[in-house]
């Protein structure tokens, strides 16, 4: 798998309102539902459904009540994939703090779009091609939103045919470069 495809895939996996916060807050050695819920300030039902999604995606492992040898032992542990994504979550979180525009990972496709542009996909269809499953409508909406918060710049190129060209803003480009390098460094 090409590095840019791998990076986009990782950033897709970390998208979602609670994915990044859960991975940042869950203890590396595993965690119990109750303390995690209190740290995240999330409703029990929402945490429960998010944890179930992460289990289904192979990020977390749920330890059954009859297999826990002590009530203080974890109910949820990170899988190998989960430990890797937790490291990646720290990288994206640090970049979000530097970008200072709030949590980009909360909305689907923000990070994959930024990574695609970083990897020289400047035309709409090039970005879409790398993202694979994003609809034109959602891609267009996200690009507009990223432009409005000055992370992405849009210019109109006239040759060979008139089209929009997307680049990272001067402020965002070095942050995305570091994020990309840091993600590449943790890929096996």
């Amino acid at each position: 798998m090409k590095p840019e495809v791998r990076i986009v895939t990782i950033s897709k996996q970390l998208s979602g309102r609670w994915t990044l916060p859960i991975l940042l807050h869950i203890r590396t050695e595993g965690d119990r539902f109750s303390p995690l819920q209190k740290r995240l300030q999330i409703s029990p039902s929402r945490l429960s459904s998010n944890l179930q999604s992460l289990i289904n995606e192979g990020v977390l492992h749920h330890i059954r009540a009859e297999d826990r040898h002590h009530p203080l032992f974890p109910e949820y542990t990170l899988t190998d994939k989960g430990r890797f994504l937790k490291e990646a979550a720290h990288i994206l979180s640090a970049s979000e703090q530097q970008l200072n525009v709030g949590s980009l990972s909360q909305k689907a496709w923000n990070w994959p779009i930024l990574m695609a542009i970083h990897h020289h996909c400047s035309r709409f269809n090039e970005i879409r091609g790398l993202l694979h499953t994003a609809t034109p409508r959602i891609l267009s909406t996200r690009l507009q939103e990223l432009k409005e918060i000055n992370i992405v710049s849009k210019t109109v190129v006239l040759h060979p045919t008139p089209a929009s060209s997307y680049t990272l803003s001067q402020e965002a480009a070095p942050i995305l470069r570091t994020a990309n390098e840091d993600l590449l460094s943790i890929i096996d």
Partner: protein
Amino acid sequence: MFTSGFTIWYNVTNVEQTLKFYTESLGFKLDFHDADNGMASVHTNTPDCFIGFSEATDVIPSKASAVFEVTNIEETVLKLKETGISFTSDVTTIPGLVKLATFKDPDGHDLELSQTLNGAE
């Protein structure tokens, strides 16, 4: 080999509700309560004997009874019933040995009162 000290740990669904039961209904003393981590323990009236609680999403009620010794089981049963505790058995006597009465905590963990009999009773 062993030092003085004995603790039973239970998974519970709500540590505050459990603490209310063990401190207010049974009268045990709070040892510690860490609300952020959903854990607590109470000190039974036996030295170095504690019951610990940890919140969990799946709680399997324990069938291994924690047994508390009392001096008069009938009086204790009446007193605990006044606090709202429902007993799951009448007082049962094993002649010459012990009288027993069973009840459950809010998560269904089995608990028991025991009055040791001397041989003549």
